[in-house]
């Protein structure tokens, strides 16, 4: 394939699209899919055939539009979005194509949820059909890869990524350009690129959505990375719990290979790259890079001490580049528009945009992409629409089991890697769970500690034994049988785990406890001294079970 061939495919695709006067896009990502959007799409297809509109109107299954709570979502053009669509509404939607959009199902798009977002990673989500490579090529897809292969040297690609200031979107925020140049300088005949799609963090579904909505973009990002660091083989480590994402990735890889965009001698150059899928099997610790490597090698997912870092000695002992799904998805636009363009967005140290999965006690649950540096208040109250049932905001939890709970005082804090870390939480992979006064913060801390205890791989003692004891202490507090000495012990264990655990799981496991102790000390006090749970959560499950 040459640049001209690619342009030809893109043009053919656009011409084919242009023949239709109308376009009906039905969201077929996992959120809407579980509200039966597949049957909506079938009903619309049937209705188009019944009316004989095959030449006039095209229906297409697309990726996630973002507003998962209002699904199934159907879009019939920019600004016209229908919510809660059922199979029976197909006729009404097609009727409205020529006239005024029907009012009953209309979902307003002039609201902050849509207006305040800035889409880079998700620019194709809800527009492109994830199961057709031509559609992706039609919206400038694989253009960045061709450009890299034809006019850029590997070091120029790395320079561009360094200039963009992109940092790892998996959570830790390590500069991507630096990681790439380390791997490219490492000595080795064989090098590997791994895409970390093991989104084990409960409450996060960004990677799943990107893989389901725009799998080719992730592949393109991986191809560019492989060219830059000199790798010829790659793996995508994806959770087995995401069957739809796996299916679409398999389709995407097959299509890219058929087009000659992946495999041997890509586009007639000497660059070859193949990608294989590896399915995770439900272990949170496999998000840690050395554990992930062990799992790809077919072993138990236990981490090992670093250094040597995977960049020097990773998969099968070879230099390995590991990046998150969202990091790879950022690469094609960076190459296309230049690193300087990307560096304009965001704050001084955190560039670009970040995708967050909004969930919990919030009006608009779903996926949002916002520029770095936006405040939490804007995300929760403007984009998220605030708290339902006129309840009070209590906390927002970021970063999953490794993050912390931030109270209302921090709502005006900008969202970037440094500010979140200073406030005792982390950026994490992008899960954002909002809680109102019906949540007990001690119970939430216990929930996360129970998670870390179960997910601890058991290799190092501080994590294996420490999480068990911390969970026991939190259980005692929520049972209201704890004393002052238990709080002191809990604080001591937090410190111990943080400084002596082998990997990130153990080191960050105390974060939910530390942050709730810091901001919601009165709730701990109520449980310990007054023997009551202010939110009325603790003990209620037990009472229900007994009834």
């Amino acid at each position, binding site marked *: 394939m040459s640049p001209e061939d690619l342009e030809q495919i893109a043009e053919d695709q656009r011409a084919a699209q242009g023949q239709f006067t109308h376009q009906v896009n039905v969201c077929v990502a996992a959120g809407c899919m579980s509200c039966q959007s597949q049957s909506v799409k079938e009903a619309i297809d049937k209705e188009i055939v019944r009316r004989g509109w095959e030449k006039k109107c095209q229906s297409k299954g697309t990726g996630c539009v973002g507003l998962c709570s209002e699904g199934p979502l159907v879009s019939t053009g920019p600004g016209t979005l229908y919510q809660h669509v059922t199979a029976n509404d197909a006729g009404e939607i097609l009727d409205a194509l020529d006239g005024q959009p029907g009012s009953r199902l209309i979902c307003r798009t002039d609201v902050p949820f849509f207006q305040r977002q800035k889409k880079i990673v998700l620019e194709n989500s809800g527009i492109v059909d994830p199961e057709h490579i031509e559609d992706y090529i039609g919206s400038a897809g694989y253009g960045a890869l061709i450009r890299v292969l034809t006019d850029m040297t590997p070091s120029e690609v790395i320079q561009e990524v360094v200039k963009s200031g992109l940092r790892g979107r998996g959570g830790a925020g390590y500069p991507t350009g630096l990681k790439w140049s380390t791997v490219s300088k490492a000595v080795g005949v064989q090098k590997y690129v791994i895409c970390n799609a093991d989104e084990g963090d409960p409450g996060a579904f960004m990677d799943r959505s990107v893989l389901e909505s725009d799998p080719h973009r992730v592949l393109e990002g991986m191809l560019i990375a492989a060219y830059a660091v000199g790798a010829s083989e790659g793996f995508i480590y994806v959770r087995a719990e995401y069957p739809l994402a796996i299916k679409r990735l398999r389709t995407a890889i097959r299509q890219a290979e058929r087009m000659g965009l992946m495999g041997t001698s890509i586009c007639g150059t000497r660059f070859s790259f193949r990608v294989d899928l590896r*399915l995770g099997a439900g272990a949170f610790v496999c998000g840690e890079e050395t554990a992930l490597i062990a799992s790809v090698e077919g072993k138990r997912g236990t981490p090992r001490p670093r250094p040597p870092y995977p960049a020097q000695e990773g998969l099968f002992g070879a230099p390995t580049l590991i990046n998150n799904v969202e990091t790879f998805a950022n690469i094609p636009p960076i190459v296309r528009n230049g690193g300087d363009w990307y560096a304009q967005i965001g704050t001084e140290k955190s560039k670009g945009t970040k995708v967050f999965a909004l969930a919990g006690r919030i009006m608009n649950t779903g996926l949002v992409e916002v520029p770095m540096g936006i405040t939490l208040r804007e995300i929760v109250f403007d984009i998220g629409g605030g708290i339902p049932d006129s309840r009070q905001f209590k906390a927002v939890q970021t970063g999953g089991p490794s993050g912390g709970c931030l109270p209302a005082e921090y709502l005006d804090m900008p969202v970037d890697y440094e500010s979140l870390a200073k406030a005792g939480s982390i950026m994490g992979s992008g899960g954002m769970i909002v809680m109102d006064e019906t949540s007990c913060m001690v119970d939430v801390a216990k929930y996360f500690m129970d998670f870390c205890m179960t997910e601890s791989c058991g290799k190092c003692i501080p994590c294996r034994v420490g999480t068990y004891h911390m969970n026991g202490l939190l259980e005692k507090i929520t049972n209201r049988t704890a004393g002052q000495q238990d709080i002191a012990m809990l604080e001591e264990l937090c410190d111990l785990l943080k400084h002596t655990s082998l990997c990130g799981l153990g080191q960050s496991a105390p974060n939910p406890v530390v942050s709730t102790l810091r901001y919601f000390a009165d709730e701990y006090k109520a449980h310990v001294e007054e023997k009551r749970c202010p939110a009325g959560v603790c003990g209620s499950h037990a009472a229900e079970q007994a009834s």
Partner: protein
Amino acid sequence: MITDFSKPAPPSSDKRWRLVDATMRRLGHHSRGLIVTLHTVQETFGYLDEGALRYVAISLRVPFSRAYGVATFYHFFTLKPAGEHTCVVCMGTACYIKGAPQLLSALQHDLDIKPGETTPDNKVSLLTARCLGSCGLAPAVVYDNEVAGKVGTSDLRQRLAKWTANVS
């Protein structure tokens, strides 16, 4: 040093073992294909029993202890067959905040089993998931591979009644 390169016999004459053999062949019978092979076994047979683990271990030339270690390390692998119907309650953070514990305790009460167990008549298996990624629809429950969002206790009881009614 390995001296015996003969192919071990599958645990049974079931034709589905050919799928498992095909996976192992594709990966060159290398030990790094252990997890991939176990996925195929579970996908084909629904669970991993001792015979399957021994067969995979011998075929890939890894100690049985390693195959067993991997199978028990990862939550996704199960060593017990599931019941006729499965009900998976998502216990992710968003679902937890929105009342998944209440759903789980209602199920535990109605079915009189704990998560990970199957009812004595082998009709319903109750499982929990760490996170399904359907957080926008919390609380989420998977009934026989079909994800349902915004589930309430009454929906849950209705579904259970349907399952048990079909049976008798």
